[in-house]
């Protein structure tokens, strides 16, 4: 009797799964460094209007393409004489938004599709997964460019195209983990005790599959950042004069002969953001002990 009581107390004291994951993540210095950089970028994006030293839209024929370190323009000016630092700061808003949003929407839609397919099995599964396979048969970059190229330039179309690219990828992962969970004993037990499909999914399937899907989705944010900025780089995403890192890189492309390092700045921002998301995703993955 005493033994059982002791055990119960021990169970109560032992930290939960997510607390353990959080602690392991906190010990990962590389992932924490990446998280700090991302936090800083998000804060910059939120407080951009107060952080910008100059008007990011004010152009000047006389001040075109000034080098880094010019008086009053710490990071130089772009091809229309606009302050680079201010544009990079305000650009964080659209760039982060364009990179993160498609993965968020695809996480919801893809998980829903994959869980339904995996849990229902049979013809429902076949119908959903064969359509998913067709989209999956295209390389991501090609599909994103084909869709947004057809739909036309603009923020909405770019977001839609990227979402369509990521939904099948997430749905495949969701379907495969749901199928695995569906055949576990506790799901059989719940079904045998008369629980409805909805209850089983909510109580037993969701908390077992959302973790792996979440890990996979975090890994996609880095890809999404590169693709979203890539679309703007091709002239298919954000339209001028809005500052977005990919678009800035595009309009500064011809300036590599006059001000090469100013021209390369927006790309460096995309790189820092994308590698930070990747390192954080790697950290979360290893903290959750899921191998890729």
């Amino acid at each position: 009797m005493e033994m059982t009581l002791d055990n119960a107390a021990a169970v109560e004291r032992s930290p939960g799964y997510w607390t353990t994951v959080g602690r392991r993540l906190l010990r990962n210095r590389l992932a924490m460094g990446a998280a700090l950089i991302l936090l800083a970028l998000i804060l910059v994006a939120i407080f951009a209007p107060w952080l910008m030293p100059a008007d990011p839209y004010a152009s000047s024929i006389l001040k075109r393409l000034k080098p880094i370190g010019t008086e009053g323009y710490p990071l130089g000016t772009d091809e229309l004489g606009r302050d680079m630092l201010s544009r990079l700061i305000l650009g964080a808003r659209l760039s982060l938004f364009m990179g993160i949003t498609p993965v968020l929407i695809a996480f919801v839609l893809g998980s829903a599709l994959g869980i339904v397919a995996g849990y229902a099995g049979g013809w429902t599964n076949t119908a959903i997964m064969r359509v998913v396979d067709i989209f999956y048969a295209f390389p991501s970059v090609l599909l994103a460019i084909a869709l947004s190229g057809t739909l036309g330039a603009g923020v909405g179309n770019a977001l839609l195209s990227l979402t369509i690219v990521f939904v099948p990828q997430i749905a495949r992962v969701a379907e495969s983990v749901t199928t695995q969970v569906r055949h576990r004993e506790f799901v059989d037990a719940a079904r045998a005790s008369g629980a409805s499909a909805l209850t089983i999914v909510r109580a037993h399937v969701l908390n077992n599959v959302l973790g792996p899907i979440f890990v996979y989705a975090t890994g996609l944010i880095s890809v999404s950042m590169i693709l979203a900025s890539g679309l703007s780089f091709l002239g298919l995403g954000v339209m001028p004069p809005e500052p977005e890192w990919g678009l800035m890189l595009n309009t500064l492309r011809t300036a590599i002969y006059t001000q090469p390092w100013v021209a390369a700045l927006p790309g460096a921002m995309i790189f820092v953001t994308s590698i930070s998301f990747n390192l954080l995703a790697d950290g979360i993955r290893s903290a959750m002990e899921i191998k890729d």
Partner: protein
Amino acid sequence: MSYLLRRALYALPILLGVALLCFSLVHIAPGDPLVSVLPPDASEEMRRQLAALYGFDKPFIEQFVHWLTRALHGDLGTSIATSRPVMQEVATAVVNSVRLAAVATLIGFTFGCLFGFVAGYLRDSAVDRAASFLSVFGVSVPHYWLGMVLAIVFSVMLGWLPATGAGPGGSGDWSWNWEHVQYMLLPAITMSVIPMGIVARTIRALVAEILSNEFIVGLKARGLSDLAVFRHVVKNVAPTALSVMGLQLGYLLGGSILIETVFAWPGTGFLLNSAIFQRDFPLLQGTILVLAVFFVLLNLAVDALQTLFDPRIQRN
């Protein structure tokens, strides 16, 4: 063998779906697809004639079947912008893209293998850390930006290599001499970074796993030289390494549009870019169809090769 047959049969509906998706592009496009061909003051009669010429007056399924039948006979229609057969345009561009992607894959594969093997043998060494950095770098770097940076360093500052184009004679006149190859180096190196990182990561993990196997200990205990053991490791790594390389070649072909744009390389990416901005739908559909079909078939070939190399694989 039955696995391969099932795998090949399974590719058929996928190919049909891919074709349907490519064909649908023109129908999801906003506005009238004829706008780019019609003069602004065109009469309703003229519009109808042109619609009939392109088949737009027929029901969707009939149009698709007609388009697909012609495509299977190698006819992808006529480019609106250049009035040349789409097949001819795509064929020239595909050759240029394959050339670039193949060289990039080769560079990426060679260095990726090198890094992967050394890192797998010497875990936690400096090379191992460099390899893991390389793999994160390869998938994180916006390759269009890397291309710009390489162009800045090697063309603008050092003046060693040309920054754009495909060399004298343009896209049609290629030969494997320095005059032409120098134009390929920067885009190929830029492109190679992605497969390099992925190959290095895959091979490192595989080598580390194989070296921890009991049969390796057994081989060493029987007195085999390190070189002989290495041969066993290579034999075990090869199937996966080759399939990763094959898949990467496909991804590079499909994803080359951004790099081709940066370096003005006259491949499929470049073609796609002009098709999009000139609203040239036959060219857009045709290019995407060819690339996607190529990708599906490449996947199939990779699976087939892997099964031949490693008979243990009988996946579903």
